[in-house]
């Protein structure tokens, strides 16, 4: 990767430099206002946009959940018809998994990984923007179904043949199949980008085993995505081909075996649940040491167990199929493999507790959410082990016992961790803290509501209440706990509204000056992102940090004195970088958003009219060429264009802007 001289902001074609790409279209200059967001290639802006969009979908997925709960508040509820109910739980699950937790994790990954490894951006900034916009359009596309004849109604795992045209004749399942396909492309693009970034763009001295645990977990997650997404891609293709082109993959009268879909879906689906949880595991592995003022207990063990969870997650998928007719050998095998996932996970839990043990625990908001992850996730994990006992699962599966399990791990685990991350990194991203008092109200309301909403589901499940049932009868004896659950859900709503209020109020206060500007290192942090000002300057680092240790920044602040006792030698805020250098940054680009817009067009065309697909394809190809022909911001970049199918990223003109400003020498890599 070569480095450039000082360069003008807008680049024309390099005269005489035959190997840089041609500059047919001008790139937008440093735009302001909304343009600065739409065309940005800055990983921080992209991260924030991921977060904002994910929170929007969280609101929507939450409303869907509340409608479900309203229906189940009383026996024989009349709030929803069965049809509406089926669409709502399908879209609630799909939304929460694909449009909330995954992009929220992507938000943190995008924002924090480059900072944590001391890089100025990700490897391919334009690809990064592409991933965001594809995700945005994918989410919109999926939800368009509400306005075009009704949402998908096959459940989030969409078991064939119920999701075929015969049994689900509306367009809903088409939107599901194509929408997830689009969201999958977004994740794949992002995954490759982050993998390359983490493998290749760490600050000097930051070996793999000096990387922050959050970055590590994100790396594991990106590998899971890299390998899991193709499988659901194929599953969805088979489903789409069945629905759109009359193929026979799930046509039983032609001899299809419906278990094929289940295998393909869960081969993706189980790694997916670790995709959802590992980022949060990474986040609490950052916050717990900081707020315990102790290093992470067993850093390498936590890293290795994270990788082990990722790895073992590939061998357990059929635990979702214990009653599908796998046969006893398969059931026994998958039952055993599933149980042992508890080992690496348990190691993490106990190491976190050991981290806090003997510490000096500061119960800030990030800490409170982190501790609640440790305890709530454990409950969910343990019910997971109960499901893994296959014969017992024949009584549990498809009841609310399962619903309880996965909300404990998803909400109590993944979401709690992500909220910890929000409170933790908010000052870094925006320059001010969220109000502590409101935050505490948010926390307690959510914790209480969460346990009220999902705790009783264990009981309901054991009483035999089946999931995905749009009603239950008065004779079933489920009334009491269902009422509690619904009330709990609304308590969560109250908590979340407090959170929203907090955001708005703190922001207004910050603008007015009543909420103070936070320094670079408000929490006495340990990792590199705290060594730069808050909010993060556009170029991240003035000087690329040279790293010599795990938690390197902390070691800059605390050093052993003559007796070998650790002493604070410097104040983090004083030694942080000033953000006053102005290295060259990649210019924004129009193409990511344009290219992304082509995908929903193509998909809509597949449902309604192939002409639209044609237009979408033209737009796709056109923007690929536009992308490649765009002037590079770097003479070394631009390998020319070639429409290869994983995105035209090889020309990565932006890939090379790692260090430009202070360095003058041009040196080829090889």
């Amino acid at each position, binding site marked *: 990767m070569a480095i450039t001289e000082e360069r003008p902001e807008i680049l024309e074609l390099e005269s005489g430099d035959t190997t840089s790409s041609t500059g047919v279209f001008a790139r937008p200059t440093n735009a302001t206002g909304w343009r600065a967001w739409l065309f940005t290639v800055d990983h921080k802006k992209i991260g924030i946009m991921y977060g904002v969009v994910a929170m929007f979908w969280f609101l929507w997925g939450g409303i869907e959940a509340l409608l479900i709960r309203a229906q189940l508040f009383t026996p024989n509820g009349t709030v929803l018809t069965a049809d509406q109910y089926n669409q709502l739980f399908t879209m609630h699950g799909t939304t929460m998994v694909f449009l909330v937790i995954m992009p929220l994790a992507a938000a943190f990954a995008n924002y924090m990984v480059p900072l944590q490894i001391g890089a100025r951006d990700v490897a391919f900034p334009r690809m990064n923007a592409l991933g965001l916009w594809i995700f945005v359009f994918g989410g919109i596309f999926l939800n368009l179904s509400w306005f075009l004849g009704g949402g998908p109604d096959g459940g989030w795992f969409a078991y064939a043949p119920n999701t075929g045209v015969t049994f689900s004749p509306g367009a809903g399942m088409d939107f599901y199949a194509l929408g997830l396909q689009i969201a999958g492309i977004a994740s794949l693009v992002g995954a490759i980008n982050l993998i390359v970034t983490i493998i290749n763009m760490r600050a*000097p*001295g930051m070996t*793999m085993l000096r990387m922050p645990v959050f970055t590590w977990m994100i790396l594991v997650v990106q*590998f899971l995505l890299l390998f899991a997404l193709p499988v659901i891609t194929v599953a969805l293709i088979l489903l789409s081909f069945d629905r759109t082109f009359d193929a026979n993959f799930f046509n039983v009268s032609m001899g299809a075996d419906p278990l094929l879909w289940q295998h393909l879906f869960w081969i993706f689906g189980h790694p997916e649940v670790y995709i959802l949880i590992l980022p949060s595991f990474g986040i609490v592995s950052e916050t717990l040491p900081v707020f315990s003022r102790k290093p992470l207990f067993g850093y390498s063990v936590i890293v290795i167990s994270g990788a082990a969870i990722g790895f073992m997650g590939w*061998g357990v998928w*059929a635990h979702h199929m214990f009653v599908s*007719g796998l*046969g006893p*050998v398969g059931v026994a095998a998958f039952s055993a493999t599933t149980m042992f996932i508890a080992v690496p996970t348990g190691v993490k839990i106990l190491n976190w507790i050991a981290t806090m043990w003997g510490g000096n625990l500061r119960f800030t908001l990030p800490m409170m959410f982190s501790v609640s992850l440790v305890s709530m996730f454990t409950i969910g994990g343990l019910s997971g082990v109960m499901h893994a006992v296959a014969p017992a699962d024949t009584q549990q599966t498809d009841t609310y016992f399962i619903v309880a399990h996965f909300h404990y791990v998803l909400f109590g685990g993944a979401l709690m961790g992500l909220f910890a991350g929000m409170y933790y990194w908010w000052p870094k991203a925006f320059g001010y803290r969220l109000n502590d008092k409101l935050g505490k109200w948010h926390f307690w309301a959510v914790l209480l509501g969460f346990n009220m909403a999902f705790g009783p589901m264990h009981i309901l499940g054991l009483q035999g209440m089946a999931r995905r049932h749009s009603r239950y009868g008065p004779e079933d004896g489920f009334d009491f706990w269902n009422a509690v659950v619904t009330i709990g859900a609304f308590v969560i709503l109250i908590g979340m509204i407090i959170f929203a209020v907090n955001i708005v109020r703190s922001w207004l206060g910050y603008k007015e000056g009543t909420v103070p500007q936070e320094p670079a290192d408000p929490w006495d942090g340990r990792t590199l992102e705290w060594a730069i000002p808050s909010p993060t300057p556009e170029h991240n680092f003035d000087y690329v940090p040279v790293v010599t240790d795990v938690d390197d920044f902390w070691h800059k602040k605390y050093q052993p004195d003559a007796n070998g006792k650790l002493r604070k030698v410097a104040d983090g805020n004083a030694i942080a970088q000033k953000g006053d250098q102005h290295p060259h940054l990649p210019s924004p680009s129009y193409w990511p958003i344009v290219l992304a817009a082509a995908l929903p067009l193509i998909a809509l065309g597949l449902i309604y009219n192939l002409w639209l697909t044609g237009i979408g394809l033209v737009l796709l190809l056109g923007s690929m060429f536009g992308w490649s022909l765009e002037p590079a911001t770097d003479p070394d970049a631009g390998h020319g264009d070639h429409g290869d199918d994983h995105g035209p990223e090889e020309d990565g003109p932006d890939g090379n802007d790692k260090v430009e400003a202070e360095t003058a020498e041009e040196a080829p890599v*090889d």
Partner: protein
Amino acid sequence: METVAASEEDTHAEHHDHGLSDVGYIKIAIILGVLTAVEVATYFWDFGILEVPSLLILMVVKFQIVVSYFMHLKFDSKVFSYLFVTGLVLAMAVFAAMGTSMVFWQDPSGCDASSFC
């Protein structure tokens, strides 16, 4: 630079050994051609029980040759091997398990869907 830069994982990166000479590649191609001819021969002559194993072995050998030589994996950085081989091995393991479970581990039923037995 080398001292501070983190080139810890990979020490082979510097000497980009680009494999064979053109003649070497042509030889490889000839070998591949011959192997393919053997494969096709199984269609014309009966290899008995050896047929499937030999086809599989030939396939793996051809695969290996293309990957090692044409794709330089043998000479290139280990990072590439890790990336590719992880995907490959994962694919083989997972789909072998899926296939096994769908073909061999079924409940013994021994009758078709529409009759008592």
